[in-house]
């Protein structure tokens, strides 16, 4: 097995290390070499600490030599730049957090550290996870590894590009309205958004607290199951994390599709969507049917309200979550402020990018007295209705299949001028966040231009085993891209 292969998975790497076929140092060195070779073109990373990576690899090798094992001992994992890793920067793709060095580990980082993982670098993202193309990063534009003129998707575009482009075995991302699934689809890798509360959010720089979830971006479904099993579960530091048992996701992967009931929400196959995307997804559905699943059409009638509800709730929460970036305690502070308010204004005017400002202003507006009922409260009611849509559908289905995005990746700069166009691209992913359920993005082919297409598998809350099982069966039935 070639260590620098863009196909090497986590579970394969663990096998290589366990069998003594390679050392963690060799694995990390080959990865750093790949980053050196490709990242000038892809721009997936904002920060790579080679020295720290090699030092951690050395420690891991020494531990292995002593007979120690660990789920990920000596395995490097890339981390989206909005997750806190002690001693590393965490800019969230924003100028306003320049100079901030995290004093603590996020809950998921602590767990993976326990497993022996190596944290060596931080991946690019839309500023504060606000965007769908990673073009909103304050620092660099990430390119789609499948086609350099195209966006990698977003906001976890750096993580997806790194995994798909051979620059990471696996990565962590965050998904508030599609930010793991959509870039995974655009770049051609696997992306899982776990159910709300399944994974601790502690240490994830919040964008929209009631929607955010951390999840893995991987090269195959088994790796997603592996990582989810390690990061899922209750964390006392996150009151909203669920205190329910975590199943062995890897154990149920191979159970097949016979007897599985799969729904096709008719609102997710609509006029105006890309014909090649639709064809790929329908073909994938057909594969699932052939594998023994029972497929039927279902309806999620409130789907068309999801984007509106999402942009009200997410921006409302964001307007408060991002209030702390004021230049007082850490990060960037603008010069020349005459009093605290003036200092805030200058710091935030210079520190935040256009899209972040747009969403803060929108969120501030919808929470203002006199507008709260018309916007925020209405959006919350819609959210309840959207959640109910899914509850009803899942009464007769174990999972739903749909496209991740109505289009494949678009050209860099193509949708920048019209934010609304960009927002509408999230139509198939945001309902999952609003409902708090889980969603998996699995590659299901490519367009004639060579752009990957993603199949979205949606499952009930805390039934990640369902979507992983379907994803695994489907993935096995077709060759890797």
């Amino acid at each position, binding site marked *: 097995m070639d260590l620098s292969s863009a196909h090497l998975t986590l579970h394969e790497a663990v096998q290589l290390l366990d069998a003594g076929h390679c050392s963690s140092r060799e694995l990390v060195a080959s990865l750093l070499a790949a980053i050196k070779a490709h990242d000038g073109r892809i721009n997936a990373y904002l920060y790579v600490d080679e020295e720290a990576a090699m030092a951690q690899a050395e420690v891991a090798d020494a531990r292995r030599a002593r007979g120690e094992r660990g789920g990920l001992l000596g395995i490097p994992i890339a981390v989206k730049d*909005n*997750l*806190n890793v002690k001693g590393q920067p*965490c800019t*969230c793709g924003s100028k306003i*957090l320049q100079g*901030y060095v*995290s*004093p*603590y580990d*996020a809950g998921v980082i602590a767990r993976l550290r326990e497993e022996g993982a190596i944290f060596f670098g931080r991946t690019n993202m839309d500023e504060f996870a606000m965007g769908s193309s990673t073009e909103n990063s304050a620092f660099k534009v990430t390119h789609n590894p499948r086609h350099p003129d195209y966006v990698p998707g977003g906001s976890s575009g750096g993580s997806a590009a790194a995994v798909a482009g051979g620059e990471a075995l696996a990565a962590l991302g965050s998904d508030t309205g599609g930010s793991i699934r959509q870039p995974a689809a655009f770049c051609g890798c696997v992306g899982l958004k776990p159910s709300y509360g399944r994974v601790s*959010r*502690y*240490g*994830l*720089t*919040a964008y929209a*607290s*009631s929607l955010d979830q951390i999840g893995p971006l991987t090269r195959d479904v088994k790796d997603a199951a592996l990582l989810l099993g390690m990061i899922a579960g209750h964390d*006392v*530091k*996150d*009151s*909203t994390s669920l205190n329910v048992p975590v199943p062995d996701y890897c154990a149920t992967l191979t159970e097949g599709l016979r007897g599985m009931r799969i729904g096709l929400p008719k609102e997710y196959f609509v006029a105006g969507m890309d014909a090649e995307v639709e064809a790929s997804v329908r073909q994938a559905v057909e594969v699932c049917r052939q594998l023994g699943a029972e497929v039927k059409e279902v309806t999620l009638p409130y789907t068309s309200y999801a984007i509106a509800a999402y942009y009200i709730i997410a921006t*409302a*929460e964001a*307007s*408060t979550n991002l*209030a*702390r*970036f*004021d230049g*007082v*305690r*850490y990060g960037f502070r603008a010069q020349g402020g005459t009093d*605290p*308010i003036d200092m*805030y204004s200058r710091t935030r005017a210079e520190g935040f990018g256009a899209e972040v400002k747009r969403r803060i202003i929108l969120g*501030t507006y919808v*929470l*203002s*007295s006199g507008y*709260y009922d018309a916007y*925020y409260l209405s959006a919350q009611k819609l959210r309840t209705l959207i959640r109910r849509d899914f509850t009803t559908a899942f009464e007769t289905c174990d999972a739903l299949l749909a496209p991740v995005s109505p289009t494949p990746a678009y050209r860099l700069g193509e949708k920048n001028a019209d934010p609304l166009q960009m927002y509408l691209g999230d139509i198939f992913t945001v309902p999952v966040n609003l409902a708090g359920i889980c969603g998996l993005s699995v590659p299901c082919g490519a367009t004639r231009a060579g752009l990957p297409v993603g199949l979205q598998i949606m499952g009930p809350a805390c039934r990640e085993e369902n979507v992983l099982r379907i994803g695994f069966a489907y993935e096995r039935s077709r060759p890797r891209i």
Partner: protein
Amino acid sequence: MTYLTTIGLEVHVQLRTKSKMFCGCATHFGDAPNTRVCPVCLGFPGVMPTMNEEAIRLTVMTGLMIGSQISHYSKFDRKSYFYPDMPKNYQISQYDKPLCIGGGVDIEVNGVFKRVGVTRIHLEEDVGKSMHFKSASGVDFNRAGVPLMEIVSEPDMVSPEEAFNYLIALRRILLYANVSDGNLEEGNIRCDVNVSVRPEDQAKLGTKAEIKNLNTFKGALNALKYEILRQVQVLEQGGRVVQETRRWDADTGVTLSMRSKEDAHDYRYFSEPDLLPVCLSVAQVDQWRSELPELPGERRVRWMKEYSLSEYDAGVLAADREIGDFFEAAARLAVSAKAVSNWVMTEMLRLLAEKELSIRDVRITPWALAELVALTEQRVVNSNTAKEIFAELFEKGGDPAVIVQSRGLGQVSDATAVEAMVDRAMAENPKSVQDFRSGKAAAAKFLIGQVMRLSRGKADPQLAAKILESRLGASPDARQGEDVS
């Protein structure tokens, strides 16, 4: 024109918890700036709050003490405003679902009792403290995140004195329930006052002003007195009171405008998505109810019955929980509860006031006071000596019997010894003996005084009087009580 005043108070109370509201940092006061902080209370990126359950319990206990309805479903909200002392630029507070609703506090002004209604009690987090230096400002975040309970009163008070007494009464309750240290110097209790005035023939309330952040009760009293005069003056001069927020400048003794209603904050409240709602079961609230301490009023009535105290004495002793606890502990051990009450009411309170101490700081134990009472009742010591012993116990602690013995303070009750001293006093003062025999009863007093002098105050005065009486021949006038020396 006579004017009527309407006052409502919002009292902020720091709760007595070991750790902060949403993180594990200690709530300790007085440490070097920014030494009691962590990523959570500093509002670092990615941190999340976790609930301090003890703060919930203390808030509910307060509600139970003042007869509030306890919410079985309560939640937290974000209150947004920018200020350097606010780490997240929003405060986690409670907006529409507070922990406690309703209730009231009994106050007394000039002998008249009155119940001031409480609208609600909610829980929130304290902010940091801004510090201003010559060329820069800084913020100390040690206080940021300390559990802060806000008690909102109804606009039921009609004078600064009522507001002042409400604060005193509220503080007593907080100390009784042990929910706060109630230390004003450390900022444990701070209040905002809302006040308006109106001509007495007008039914509609006047326009109110809010005076923020008063951190002493005297400050609240003086600020209200000033503000009422100011508002009356505005009206008298034909002006209109504007709705605004003002601050009290204690140095100059005036209130000053901070901001008017037009630029009032829009706090943009919405539910805190990082915390789950607080759901309290009936069983939980009942459990806490069963742990409530006895209320001052209940204590007063019980002590009048159990220890035959006067209403006044019982009231004074019950007003302060720690004084009351001390009294009761001593009364249970002592041969006379009334005597204990006298000691606490007089010597104890006098010395505490004189030395500006709290009863926590003094060394005397309830047991020692009970012993002292026993020694006095058994006439081992006379009352003056007892006061000396009390003062020593107050300062140094110890066992009264040991003090008596080691310092030779015991009363001389040995009849032979006292007889010798009486004889000596009579021999040395023949004139007084003669005066007595010729009918001057006061001469006996003088002779007893001489006996006390000879005994250096230790002779049992009653025994001395009895012996003198038998020596001189009966004369009822010569009978002496205690304390002739």
